[in-house]
């Protein structure tokens, strides 16, 4: 992510952005000079505080802020899911196998990314960033067995897949609201593709654990979990911008390939309906 891009884009909406950053350009210059010296780990914090000072807490363009808050709401949920999964007590039921050890390391990588996304978004939104819920309902109001119960490792992977695929679809659905927003859009896209990497990895893990599924979404609900239907609603689409992808231009692209080659977005309402079951609001 390029901070200068973000500032430039905000300037398009708010011509006085540089002036807001106290008190004048010299301060900005100072910030960037400091930026060269401070460790990378401090960047999200520094970035967040700078946005805060510049805008107070409520002057980030309302539609942009709404998108970021929505994204943060989802990231809180995802981060909490993986934090729970990695707990020694009450976590996912990783066996002692070589595969499970590898899986657990992968969940650790994904968990770290989701927590990083939370901190990044909190930094950008500022002081009134939405908070995580105190607890979530991991059974999605009884739609799934408890993914963290003993013997339910397969359920855990299935729910993880549903969450990651939902995340991909959710970010994709928000992108149009960020068109023309430069750096903010780019950051959202940068998170979006990470969620897709996670989704593919979780799917691959399920496959390695004996459940036949591809890293890409084939048809509609390919999760093997009927109650996950809402997560995959519309994924079976084979028409893009009015162009039928199946057999396009005489090629052997079949229906499965046509659905796999394009992931579909979910609207804000569709996503909220899914995560509401987990106690997310």
């Amino acid at each position, binding site marked *: *992510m390029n901070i200068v*891009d973000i500032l430039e*884009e905000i300037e398009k909406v708010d011509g006085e952005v540089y002036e807001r950053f106290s008190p004048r350009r010299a301060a900005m210059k100072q910030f960037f000079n400091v930026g060269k010296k401070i460790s*990378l780990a401090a*960047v*999200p914090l520094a970035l967040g505080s700078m946005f805060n000072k510049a805008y107070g807490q409520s002057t980030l363009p309302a539609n942009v802020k709404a998108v970021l808050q929505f994204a943060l709401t989802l990231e809180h949920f995802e981060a909490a899911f993986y934090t729970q999964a990695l707990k020694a007590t009450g976590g996912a039921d990783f066996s002692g196998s070589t595969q499970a050890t*590898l899986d657990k*390391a*992968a969940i650790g*990588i994904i968990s770290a*990314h989701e*927590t*990083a*996304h939370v*901190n*990044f978004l909190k930094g950008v939104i500022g002081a009134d960033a939405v908070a995580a819920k105190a607890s979530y309902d991991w059974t999605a109001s009884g739609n799934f067995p408890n993914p963290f119960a003993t013997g339910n490792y397969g359920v855990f992977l299935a729910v993880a897949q549903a969450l990651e695929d939902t995340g*991909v679809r959710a970010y*994709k659905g928000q*992108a*149009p609201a960020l*068109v023309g*927003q*430069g*750096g903010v*859009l*780019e*950051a959202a*896209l*940068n*998170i*979006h*593709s*990470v969620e*897709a*990497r*996670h*989704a*593919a*990895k979780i799917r*691959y893990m399920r496959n390695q654990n004996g459940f036949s599924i*591809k*890293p*890409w979404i084939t048809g509609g609900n390919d999760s093997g979990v009927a109650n996950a239907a809402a997560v995959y609603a519309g994924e079976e689409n084979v028409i*893009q*911008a009015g*162009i039928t*992808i199946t057999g*396009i*231009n*005489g*090629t052997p*692209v*079949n229906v499965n*390939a*046509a659905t*796999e*080659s*394009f*992931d579909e*977005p979910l609207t804000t309402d569709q996503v909220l309906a899914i995560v509401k079951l987990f106690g997310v609001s």
Partner: protein
Amino acid sequence: MKNLHDEKEVLQEERSILTAPLQRRSFLQFAGAGAAGIALIAAGCKKDKHIDDGAGNMGGVTLDFKDDLGVLNYAYALEQLEAAFYIQVAATPYANISAPELAYFKDIQFHEIAHREFFKNALGQAAIAGLEVDFSKINFADRTSVLGTAKAFEDLGVSAYNGAGKLLKSTAYLTLAGKIVSVEARHAAYIRELISPNSFSNVEVVDAVNGLDKSRDPKAVLAIAGGFVKTKINVINL
């Protein structure tokens, strides 16, 4: 090496020229059977003119970033490269390839063909010509060479779409790019897992502090992709 996409295109062009006279009896009556041969030669000329791209850049294609069509053509160029690569991988699999790996490479091949043909149709008259690829540096018989190239192409594709999103003015095109980039990211993750378990989103591509994937601007992308393309790619209005 010979561009597979081009070859297919020419074949399709020939077919349509050969079958067209049958549908237009009057043309056959006047021109006779010899017309088909002449038409084929004419098709060859048209092909050359097409590569001219109408902008006077003989022997190359031009990506004009003055509007969204330029961005779509940029994506079309990358999809052409990816499709040509996987067509070759699927046609001449590396030694001792496993059945699941071959099946997934065939999947990826069709995904990239779908992307390529989608952009071609969406762009219509505005589409750049077929690119001629250069895969001389890739050893298709060797798993390590193929996987390494696949990983490079997929990560490059992800970073390219991530960097191009902000250039788009149309929300519809932005959504379409979003629909494709996540599939490229799925490919990237899978291929990375084949090379090294749990490298699906390692620090080569995702920064550890903010958890953000890479973006590259078109110039950086084309500097890398250019190593695999013979056709000159001109960039203007970026």
